[in-house]
């Protein structure tokens, strides 16, 4: 370690050390650079309303990315979050008329937790690859949702007022969804750093066999983790319902891959053991600003997707290069 630090001297080495020890710094620099570029392209666009709007759309993405961050820390991934979130949004919207807002929201959170538990059983007990397991449960969940949709087609759907207030409302120019997000983010960040559960996630991701030999019941940790991931996805779905206000079967599905991208850009290793939620939050903000930028430049849809993919690739490649030699 010492010799390595000596070898990588000079400006490049110093930069590398900064990036390695404070991974948030380059991400925030990148975010700032994007905002500046946006302001240059369209002077006057960066104002209070724009910032509030950006945060409003970045929050649900960051919450979905929380599921990815947590599961990636153990070397997993959760691709069923799209389905879990859509199911909860759909159930909440359709049960509102019969159960009232509180009941509908509570009932809506049950299916995503069940999906999460199923994932946890498959990954933790049966040792199925998380990618496959969560794709499979996502598929089953989508099927169930389509069948459920048939049965409630008559009852219609509506958005609980509290969710609309939370999803789209502003109080003094500040999005209300921060009320939900800030506590959640604090719990996740502190939880990962200070609690036993958080450290177990890193331990399992770093070396699962070592963790098991050290007395960790890894299947219990993984089961709890995926159930938690399902719960967060369910809450995100409710937030999307309040934000978009039109429940559909493809409400959250297009957001799944961006949520993986947000976690990856935020510096979480897809192989486990390394990463932080603060990085993911900045990653979600970067992706949201980027999306605005591509829209403003009036780039056709095809080119936009190409740029989106290339940016994910370039950022992660740079990240890998900078952090690898530690």
């Amino acid at each position, binding site marked *: 370690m010492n010799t390595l630090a000596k070898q990588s001297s000079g400006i490049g080495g110093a930069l590398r050390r900064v990036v390695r020890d404070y991974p948030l710094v380059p991400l925030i620099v990148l975010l700032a650079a994007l905002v500046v570029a946006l302001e240059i392209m369209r002077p006057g666009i960066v104002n209070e309303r724009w910032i509030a709007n950006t945060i409003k759309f970045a929050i649900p993405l960051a919450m979905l990315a929380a599921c990815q961050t947590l599961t990636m820390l153990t070397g997993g991934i959760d691709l069923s979050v799209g389905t879990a979130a859509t199911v909860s949004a759909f159930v909440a919207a359709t049960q509102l008329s019969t159960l009232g807002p509180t009941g509908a929201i509570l009932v809506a959170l049950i299916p995503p937790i069940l999906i999460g538990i199923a994932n946890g059983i498959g990954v933790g007990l049966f040792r199925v690859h998380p990618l*496959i397991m969560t794709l499979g449960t996502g598929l089953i969940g989508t099927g169930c949702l389509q069948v459920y949709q048939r049965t409630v087609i008559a009852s219609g759907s509506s958005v609980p007022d509290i969710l609309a207030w939370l999803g789209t409302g502003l109080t003094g120019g500040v999005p209300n969804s921060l009320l939900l997000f800030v506590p959640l983010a604090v719990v996740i960040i502190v939880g990962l750093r200070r609690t036993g559960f958080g450290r177990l996630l890193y331990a399992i991701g770093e070396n699962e066999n070592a963790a098991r030999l050290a007395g960790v019941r890894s299947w219990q940790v993984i089961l709890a983790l995926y159930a938690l991931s399902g719960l967060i996805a369910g809450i995100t779905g409710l937030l999307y319902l309040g934000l978009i206000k039109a429940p559909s079967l493809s409400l959250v599905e297009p957001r799944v891959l961006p949520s993986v991208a947000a976690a990856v850009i935020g510096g979480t290793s897809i192989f486990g053991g390394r990463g932080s939620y603060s990085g993911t939050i900045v990653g979600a903000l970067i992706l949201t600003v980027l999306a605005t930028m591509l829209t403003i430049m009036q780039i056709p849809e095809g080119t936009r997707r190409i740029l989106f993919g290339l940016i994910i690739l370039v950022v992660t490649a740079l990240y890998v290069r900078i952090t690898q030699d530690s």
Partner: protein
Amino acid sequence: MLKFLRNHYWNIGLGAMLALLLIFTKIIQPNYGISGLESLSRSALTFAFATAAQTVVVIAGGIDLSIASMMAVASVTAAVMMDGASEQYALLVVPFVLLVGLAMGAINGMLIVFSRVPDIVVTLAMLFVWEGVALMILKAPGGGSAEWVKGLLIGQVAIGWLPDGLTQWIPKALILLIVCLGAVWLPFRRSRFGLSVYAIGSSSLAAFRSGVAVNRTRIAAYSMAGLFAAMGGLVLTASTGIGAPIPGPYLLASVAAVVLGGVTLGGGRGGLLGPIIAVFILRLVRTDLALLSVDPNVTTIVEGTIMVVVVMAGGLIAVRASRK
């Protein structure tokens, strides 16, 4: 004989399952016959090529999330080039599209090797890139296909030395599939390159120390996946007559068939036959459920459940084996 059974128990089991399903289909629908088999092979064709592409990459120890998007690129390229062109011109289009597929796969592989980013992230990014490329080539479904290309999939082939009564049971689409896959897979399996792909899938470090050019092999494996994906795209254009820039549901289906086909995720084990039989099983399950007039949405649930149960059972076997 016993050794053969032991080595191929998974494929034999899959074959038996397919046979049982066919018998079951015949029982619930006594009319099921030549035309049923033909439409089954036609619908399985695109899935089979997607699965073949995924199989190669998984054996090499990777995964390719961009297969459906590469198929879309191949499909629209073929459709745009063949639209309004002469039948002879299409003879050039087909090899060109296959080359495009090889190139796309090679780009995927090179990006993985040179960027040192995990393959799952690279192919996730390339999923967007190829989707974008397909949209740039063709904004909405359109284009056309040469008649002889379409004709490749329809009907049966008369093979000289076989009686007509037998050949009419063999759909042309199935023969096309066997010829295309066999032409690539059999030489691959017997070559040094094929062995290298299995080696880097088992353990890339051990392969490297035994003198395998790991990076070059990995790029070649992804190129081969690109080639299969291009075949899938061509078939897609041939069967619908137009090019579709929006990728189909091939990613999930290909992973499911690969796992069901006995290829372990993580690499180094399995063949092509198992996944292809698995594709036919999954398609036939779908047909059967439709014949039983089950709600098509329930079909999705059943498919997902089959996939999850299969991988869970596979996982359980692996856990048991490692404890012994």
